[in-house]
């Protein structure tokens, strides 16, 4: 199962490190990563494989959310299907 992690907020040191440390700790593999500044807002989008994750989806989501609060950013994880069903026929 694949999921999309989005990080949106003000750019700062340690965003990728912070998020990827959590993912590595949960045995979540990063498949793709893109990062851009959209309208002065730092936006990072990661495609990850959570099929071998050592924690539940809810647990992973909570950890990322906590990291987001620590870094003062919005960090969310969503099942990939929500994007593919909306944007692909």
């Amino acid at each position, binding site marked *: 199962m694949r999921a999309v992690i989005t990080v949106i907020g003000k750019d700062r040191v340690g965003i990728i490190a912070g998020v990827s440390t959590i993912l590595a700790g949960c045995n979540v593999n990063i498949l793709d990563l893109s990062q851009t500044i959209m309208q002065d807002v730092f936006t990072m989008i990661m495609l990850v494989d959570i099929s071998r994750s050592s924690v539940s989806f809810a647990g992973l*989501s909570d950890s990322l959310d906590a990291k987001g609060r620590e870094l003062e950013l919005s960090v969310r994880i969503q099942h990939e299907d929500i994007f593919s069903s909306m944007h692909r026929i």
Partner: protein
Amino acid sequence: MISPFEVIETIKMIQEEKLDIRTITMGISLLDCCDPDAGEACRKIYDKITGLASDLVRVGENIEREYGIPIINKRISVTPIALVAGSSGEENYVMFARAMEKAADEVGVNFIGGFSALVHKGYTTGDRRLIHSIPEALSSTKKVCSSVNVATTKAGINMDAVREMGLIIKEAARLTAGQGGLACAKLVVFANVPEDNPFMAGAFHGIGEPECVINVGVSGPGAIKSALEEVKGADFGVVAETIKKKAFKITRMGQLVAQEASKRLGVSFGIVDLSLAPTPSVGDSVAHILEEMGVEKCGAHGTTAALALLNDAVKKGGTMASSYVGGLSGAFIPVSEDAGMIDAVRCGALSLEKLEAMTCVCSVGLDMIAVPGGTSSDTISAIIADEIAIGVINNKTTAVRIIPSPGKEVGDIVEFGGLLGSGPVMKVSGYGSGEFIKRGGRIPAPIHSLSN
């Protein structure tokens, strides 16, 4: 991989434009709960609902979390209770409403629909008893919703039922006078009622439906308005295309959630209802979409045409996005549940007459309309008759959810709370309709050739 712009568009629709799944509604047949002993029937109803829907809320919450899309309501609709309770000798059906309420409490849903009767051609004994029980049933429960279908295009209009519903609505208002007549907000009078509608208060599980089914209602007025902001001044071809594309995307979410919920619950997938359902919160208004199209205030001349375009484009965009479409599917215009409608009524731009015209081209009808507490039952029946006639002649669903709020006058505000919002009390005609309503009988079914 999905492009970053697409990811951001989805997140923006959810976070800023308030896109959500309005409801996952589980339809449950209660036909096998009939019993000559009403107490036994109620026990069967409770057991069946709590058995089938025990995981509904949990599954809904899990989907919400995993997909990151809010699912506002989890609800249940059941077989019209008049059909189930009619097997018993019981004359007062309030105990059936209490059994529904108890089951809804147990599984954690916020509304349960189906305290209903279908009387478009006439009453059975069960129908009559159910309708008499409505005021007490709705005033002594919180989650139970009721609906009565008084007309169809094929059967015509049961004017005896129209007359009676005026009295029932007045009585329901009287019994909940302390809450502004709240019971009436849970009661809908229909023409051509759909059997798979997931939205309250009019949801019930029709007799052509399977044992158990999942129906999903989407929302998203904010997303449509926001898309239109980007095509300011463009012609109507562009407006219609823009709405269609957005409606497609909104509906795809509904389809995904419906399929996932049906898979996880082991229940068949019924339909996605394409309705644009507003809420009282800012940025979630159908009226504001119409204003974005260029009418200064909802209710100004041009509003009906704007709504017709919106309703049609939503259906065109949504139909391709879902494998099965049903329910009401269109734009809802409930006054008290839409911030833009409330504003329009308050400033005098939107009248009951204009709303009636708007209902000719959109999905439901006169919805969540507060009128003065002194409005007579005859006038309420006549308002129902007018609205129902629109549905019957135009071969579409129409409905009336009207609240004659005790002690309130035109211009007062009635607070219903939560999703039901707050409604400004609207003016009704001061001229009577008593002699018209008194006639009773049936208005025959219309002819559908020689159309003009």
